[in-house]
């Protein structure tokens, strides 16, 4: 295959990757996006074979290795539980990083194969590119390993920090740059190896100070690194598929981690530099580490409810405090437009006054036939997809059914936990009127939406 033709095909696969990412930005097109990605990858691999035109002995080996790797990958993909996604992605990243390192090493060892000159006299530009690629790849590898261990729980999720950490990282960074410079002058293999080893160390050092809660951001950042590594190798190999894809992955990963930081209301730089871990984490991690809660945002809630077939709203005193009834009504209207069946479950003592919820719902013109008392609706939770608990707490607390010591023992409660997912809108984990903790917050099918009830509901309306 001519160089021109293969270039064209590489361009095509780059475009397919762009379309893949684009598809992934909305649920409707996401699966199509994934197919684009697969197609792009297939094209690049096939084109590479055709370009090399080497269908001998080696080709068979390549195929075998490809299949071995592929089978392992497929096996992992099918077996892994959905809850282990984040660590899986982290683990995969480490592989990409290592692959980049290996390719760079290979190029360094046999530059002729890549048109980069000969051993001991590799082209300057290529040398820089390949050592950058190797360094970034190595950082990606060791960083991802640490992230994986933290997420997997093998290593403690707590941030590890020590004095002079930032200084050490900075020094090592400078050292790498210096070594690359020196490599360019001397072309000495040992320098190349040192660069790689130091980079492994940097990867470890970069990730250990970051707390478990920030791992998603870190993973996305490592993703970005792996992209830059690929782009570096791409320049070395003069391969536009690698350049386009590397740049694409590099910048999209960086943006994604930035978006995630913003979504969690944290400073991007603090997270990336591990500074945040030292200050804030300590307080919030306390309660989180004992009992982890799942923390969602408006978009998640909107997504869940939009795709539900029935939703039950459970209002409580917090809705009254936040005066969220109008926003709630609007949310329900939007859901109904989406074809979702919505009803309201009113607990007899929700709020602080008999009929408290009724006053507010009537004010928001909620039709009476959508409002049910406990006895009439309690059985429906088992068949409902989402219970949206807005500012209620005690009235959902299952302890009233189980623990005779509890001050609310014997009170009938709304069985929200029987619905497929429970969304709790409240500002914190603090208890309600009765002053007791609610076990539901920590359940697997519960998503906590920490915010003022009105604000959160308004945001959900926006996302619907």
């Amino acid at each position: 295959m001519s160089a021109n033709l293969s270039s064209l095909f590489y361009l095509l696969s780059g475009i397919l990757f762009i379309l893949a990412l684009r598809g992934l930005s909305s649920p409707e097109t996401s699966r199509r996006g994934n197919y684009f990605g697969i197609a792009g990858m297939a094209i690049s691999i096939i084109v590479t074979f055709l370009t090399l035109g080497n269908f001998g002995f080696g080709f068979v080996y390549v195929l075998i290795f490809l299949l071995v790797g592929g089978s392992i990958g497929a096996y992992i993909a099918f077996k892994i539980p959905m809850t282990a996604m984040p660590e899986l992605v982290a683990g995969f990243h480490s592989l990409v990083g290592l692959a980049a390192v290996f390719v760079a090493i290979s190029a360094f060892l046999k530059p002729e194969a890549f048109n980069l000159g000969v051993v001991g006299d590799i082209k300057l530009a290529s040398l820089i590119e390949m050592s950058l690629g190797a360094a970034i790849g190595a950082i990606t590898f060791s960083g991802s390993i640490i992230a994986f261990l933290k997420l997997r729980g093998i290593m403690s999720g707590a941030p590890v920090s020590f004095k002079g950490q930032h200084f050490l990282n900075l020094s090592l960074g400078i050292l790498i740059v210096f070594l690359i410079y020196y490599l360019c002058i001397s072309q000495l293999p040992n320098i190349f190896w040192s660069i790689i080893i130091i980079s492994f160390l940097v990867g470890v050092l970069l990730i250990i100070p970051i707390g478990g809660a920030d791992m998603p951001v870190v993973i996305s950042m490592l993703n970005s690194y792996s992209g830059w590594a690929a782009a570096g190798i791409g320049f070395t190999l003069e391969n536009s598929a690698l350049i386009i894809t590397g740049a694409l992955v590099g910048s999209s990963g960086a943006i994604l981690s930035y978006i995630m930081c913003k979504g969690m209301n944290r400073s991007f730089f603090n997270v990336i530099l591990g500074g945040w871990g030292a200050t804030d984490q300590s307080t919030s991690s306390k309660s989180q580490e004992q009992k982890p809660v799942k923390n969602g945002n408006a978009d998640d809630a909107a997504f869940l409810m939009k795709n539900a077939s029935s939703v039950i709203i459970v209002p409580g005193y917090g809705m009254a405090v936040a005066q969220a009834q109008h926003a709630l009504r609007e949310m329900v209207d939007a859901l109904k437009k989406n074809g979702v069946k919505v009803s309201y479950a009113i607990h007899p003592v929700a709020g602080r006054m008999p009929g408290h919820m009724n006053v507010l719902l009537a004010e928001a013109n909620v039709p009476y036939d959508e409002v049910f008392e406990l006895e009439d609706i309690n059985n429906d939770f088992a068949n409902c997809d989402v219970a949206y608990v807005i500012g209620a707490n005690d009235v959902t607390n299952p302890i009233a059914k189980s623990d005779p010591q509890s001050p609310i023992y014997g009170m009938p409660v709304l069985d929200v936990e029987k619905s497929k997912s429970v969304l709790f809108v409240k500002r914190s984990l603090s208890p309600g009127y009765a002053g007791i903790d609610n076990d539901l917050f920590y359940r697997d099918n519960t998503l906590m939406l920490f915010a003022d009830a009105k604000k959160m509901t308004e945001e959900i309306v926006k996302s619907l």
Partner: protein
Amino acid sequence: MEIDPFIFRLSIFILSIFVGYYVVWSVTPSLHTPLMSVTNAISSVIIVGAIIAALSGSSFNIFETSNIFGFLAIILAAVNIFGGFLVTQRMLQMYKKKKK
């Protein structure tokens, strides 16, 4: 008036950065994880380099050190490619809109 291909590559690189920037800018948060796993899968396009590395040289001495690194890289990247796309597929299955 011949222009160094490097300049072109640089242009391509920079433009791709812009595209990457824009393309994820408006992604919905519920798709963050699938997006991450698909970008991960895509980044294993490094396999192109790995294949070149593995097959460099003549067919007879393909087990030189440099080739071995290439083969290793192939395995790693392949795990990633298959694993990444398949797991994304699985995740996206969850987002399938229910039949109403």
